[in-house]
Every structure is written in C-alpha cells, then in structure tokens.
C-alpha cells in the first residue's frame, strides 16, 4: 500500500526514507561520475596501463609557473569577472527591484520580463548584438577583460532575479520599510539595516548563481576574444588533454571553495547574537 511513500490513512504525503535516499543517490551520481572519470583519466599511465600521479607532480613541479601560467592568469580573470558581476547584481539589480517593489509596483511585470528575457536568448545570439556594443566600450574604456562583466551582468539576470524575487515575495517589504521610516530611518538605513538583512538569503542565492555562471562561461568570452578560465582551458586541451583535465579539476575545486566562502559569509548569526534578558522577571505570557 505504501509504495515507497509515507502514508496517513493510506494517503501518501512524502516519499519514504528509502525513496529519498535513492533519488539523492541518483542525482549525486550524475555529479560524481564525471568528476571521478576526470580524476581517473589524469591518473592513467598511457599505453603502459595502470595508474600513477606523474602528470599531477609534473604540473606542480614546474608547469604552473611556465607554459601553463596563462591558465592561472585566466583563473584570476574569471574570479575578477565573478566579483564584478556580483557587484552589478548587488548595486544595480537589488536596489532596482526594491524600488519597483515598494514605489512602482505597476512596473513589476515589465521588470520581470526584462530580467527573464536573457534566458531565452542563446549566448551565441547575444554575442552578435554585443560585438558592436563592445567595440564602442573598447574605444571608451579599453578592451580589458573586466568589461565582460557588463555582458555577464545581463546573462545572470534571470537567475539572480528569480532568486531575489522569491525572497522578496516572502517578506512584507512595504510594511517593514514603512515601520523603519516612522522610527526615523532614512532610505539608506531602511535599505542597509532592514531590507538587505531580511533579503540576505535571496541576495546570496543570486550571488551564488552569478559566480557559478561566470566561472563556467565560454561562448561570450571566446567570441569577443577575451581570455577567461574556460577559453584558456580549451587552448591547453588542444596541446595536452591530460593537463587540461587536471586544471579543470583544480578550477572546480577553487569554484567550490569560493561558493563555500560566500555561503559562510551569509550564514545566520542568530545563535551568537541572542542576548539574555536584562531583567529576567516572570512577567509576560508565553507564545
């Protein structure tokens, strides 16, 4: 009767522990198998057969400073671009969304459509439009890699928008900001002391996705002739597929660390901030 589901009077309301474990296992395999395959590939001893670490040791003994240095530079570029893109989300998208939500609710549909639009435009199409724009940008501010952040700011919009909007819908932003204003807070304080702390989850999720998207981006950078991590890895893989895979693994690891760090920054600080009551008297009712 239960068929893998927990039941109440025969009606299933949640998957059983076994089903949940199975789903998690299968999804986990999808992630783990390719990574394990990559590791296996880098450990092969070529035609001789068997496994050793010689490709890893060779790379670290001299490679990283020599012919593969461009990859390190490219990794730096990508991290810089990720930071730039997150900055665009934080400084442009978040205030715009709040403004629309609080002051111009009638523009919400329009904003949503604009923000979701980039997901329906393939990067390769986007580049066709971006190329002439970037030739102007290059003339104005130079052709530094960082200018790519503008393009990435657009490509991450749909993901960041959804993440922030779902948080925004769950918080009574209007009443909270009005309450803060009646208590003497100007708009700056309302934003930084009331709204951002309560939207932290959504903003962080948006930033996470932005970082993940930027670190994995290839098409736009390649077609606009900028060097980022992915384009550099492609160049390396043409000479030496083994090293390219090792570098990809390292890049994955770095990205993983980066995301962990951002997550740690935003972890709730409640437990440590809870202050004991100054005068513990048994007045007041229980919730």
């Amino acid at each position, binding site marked *: 009767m239960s068929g893998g589901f927990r039941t109440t009077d025969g009606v299933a309301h949640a998957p059983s522990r076994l089903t949940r474990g199975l789903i998690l296992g299968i999804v986990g395999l999808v992630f783990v198998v390719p990574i394990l395959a990559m590791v296996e590939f880098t450990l092969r001893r070529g035609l001789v057969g068997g496994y050793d670490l010689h490709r890893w040791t060779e790379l670290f003994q001299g490679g990283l400073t020599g012919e593969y240095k461009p990859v390190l530079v490219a990794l730096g570029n990508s991290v810089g671009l990720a930071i730039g893109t997150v900055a665009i989300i934080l400084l442009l998208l978040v205030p715009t969304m709040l403004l629309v939500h609080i002051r111009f609710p009638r523009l919400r549909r329009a904003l949503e459509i604009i923000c979701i639009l980039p997901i329906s435009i393939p990067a390769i199409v986007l580049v066709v439009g971006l190329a002439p724009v970037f030739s102007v940008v290059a003339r104005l501010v130079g052709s530094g890699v960082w200018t790519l952040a503008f393009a990435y700011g657009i490509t991450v919009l749909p993901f960041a928008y959804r993440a922030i909007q779902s948080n925004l819908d769950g*918080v*009574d932003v209007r*009443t*909270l900001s*009005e*309450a*803060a*204003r*009646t*208590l*003497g*807070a*100007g708009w700056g*304080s309302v934003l930084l*002391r*009331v709204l951002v*702390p*309560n939207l*932290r989850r959504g903003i962080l999720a948006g930033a996470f996705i932005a970082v993940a998207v930027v670190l994995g981006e290839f098409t736009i950078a390649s077609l606009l002739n900028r060097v980022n991590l992915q384009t550099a890895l492609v160049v390396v893989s043409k000479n030496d597929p083994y090293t390219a895979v090792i570098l990809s693994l390292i890049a994955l690891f770095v990205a993983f660390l980066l995301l962990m760090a951002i997550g740690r920054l935003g972890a709730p600080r*409640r437990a440590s*901030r*809870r*202050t*004991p*009551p*100054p*005068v*513990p*008297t*048994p*007045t*007041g*009712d*229980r*919730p």
Partner: protein
Amino acid sequence: MSQTTMHRAETRTGAVVEFAGVSKRYGTHQALTEFDLTLQAGELVALLGPSGSGKTTALRVLAGLESCDDGRIQINGDDVSALPTSRRDMGMVFQSYSLFPHLSAGENVEFGLRMRRVPAVERRERAAAALALVGLDAHYGRFAHELSGGQQQRVALARALVTQPRVLLLDEPLSALDAKVRVQLRDQIRRIQTDLGITTLFVTHDQDEALAVADRVAVMRDGRIEQVGTPEELYTRPATPFIADFVGLSNRLPGVVRHGFAEVHGVVLPLLDPSHPDGAVRVFVRQEDLALAPAGLPGAGRADMSLAGTVLISSFLGSLRRTSVQLAQGGTVVVQHDVRERLQVGEAVSVRFSGAPVPVQAAS
C-alpha cells in the same frame, strides 16, 4: 522602574495635531475630502468607519507615508506637511505584524533610538524600560517568530513609544488578534496612553474598540468626517442616520413623522431632532431600547407603547440574549434583553418601546 517614570514625565504633555482641509486623491478615487480634525494634547481620538472610508489614508497622511494633495497638517503649530516620515517624530503600530524579523524584540525596540544615535548603554536601558511598560521585559532576546501575535503587537507598541514621539499612530493594531487578546491589549494600550499622556490617533473599523478606548470618536464616510464626539454623544445623539445605523445595533422600522413625533405602527416616539419635516421615514430603534413580555400579561406596560409579535429565534450571548420577533404588522425587530427571560420560538409576545428619542431618515 525609574526609567519608566522619567519616560512618563517627559511626555506628559502631548502635542496638538491639526488636519486642515486635507485632501487626497488616488487616480479618480477621492480618498479624503476637505478633512478637518484637531487632536488635543494627550487625547486619544479614534477614526471609525467602514473600509474605504478614508480613515487609514488620514493616518498615513499624518505619518507622511502618503503625501496630501491639498491642505496642511500641523503639529504644535508647525506645518509638517512637507517633512519626510523619518523626521516627523511619530510612533506607529501597524495592522500587519511589522517587527523586523532579523532583530530580537529588544533590538527592534532599540531601532528608533539607534536611528537617533543614542549611545548603546542608554539605548539598552530605555528599550528594556519600554518592554517593561508593555509587560514583556523577559522577552528582550526573543525573535518575532518566537512571539505570539499579541506579544508582537506589544513589542511594536514598545518600539513606537521608546523614542518618546509627539504622536502615536495606531493603524488597526488589534484586527489580526483573537477576541480575548484584542480586549486585553485594547485596555493595555488605553492605560499606557493615559499614563504617558501621548496624543494618539487610533484607526479602527470596530465600533466596540473605538467606543471603549477613545476620548473622542470621529466617524468617517466616503473621505469625510460625518461626526466627531465623545462615545456617549455618538451613541445617544447620532448626527446623521448613517451614524445611527453604524454605531450600535439598531432596528430599522418604517414610520411617519407628524408634528415633531415619529409614529411606528401606531406607537408614538419622541424625535431626536424634533425639527424633522413631516413625511414617511425610516426610524432607528436600538435593540436595547426594546423590551419583551409574554403577550396578554398585565405587566406588559402601556398598550400604546407596545406591538404584538411572535418569537422567531433567540440566541444566547453569555451576559445577554438577543431575540428576533416577527411583528404582527409585518417586519422583524431584534431585541436585546436579560438572559433570564427565556422565550420559546413561536411564542406570542409584546414588544415594548422604552420611549427613548429616536433618529430618523427620510424614506427614499
């Protein structure tokens, strides 16, 4: 608590608030029309009205959360119409729970002081004192989600009062609470307001609430004030049929005005406004201005003040009983009476009028 005493002394004299000809339009909807109202220092005025009558708009205009299209608002003689909300020095409690979810109750209360750059130590002391004022000093470290609805609104009240604002604004603060908590908090708000002597504007759609706590009640309708007066005045001398109908529970009976008296099915009643022109009218008779007696009993009182009828339904309401009676002449009346008078459904009764002056409205 010494902090509380200091608090009281400083806000003993509230501010005088004056709305003068304030108008507010939303698109084509006129939310407020030539709104005039003066709140005396330390007075609690309730704005009472059905939804859409403009009462919340009036409060939000005073708070600066909405701008007014016309007219001006003065506090102690200073025109504040152009000041932003953050500089109007008001405390406000909202209808929906408005505590900052990321701060504890104490930090919520401290928020207004933080905005005024009060040093941390003093901030903490004053926040604790304000929480003590609403009886929640033991809940300083609790977060909103750990508090009940009533507690959240009490913290919100402490948060609104801790900065010693010139005016306290209450926007239906009790409407999300259940009946028992609502009455407790209502009385607590009134007690604190009287103690502090803070001028307060209380918006509500609940007439019991308004009549119970307010020094004066302003009844609003379609963006205008219909009548301002003490609860007793509104109840006993309603200025318009709308008020007679809206405040208290009235029966509407068809009648005729003749020579300064109203006649309902042959019963002659004095008019609240004896100058009312003769003609067909609707007569408002309060449920408590009617009494019931079994038909044909000698104690039924003067025959010319009674109407015959049969009991339709009788509901027990704890301290009183409310009975609907089908009148022999047609129509029904609802009578409020003592619980000990038990009447059977279908029983013949006589409905006796107390003879209290009645308001009337010309029948259209």
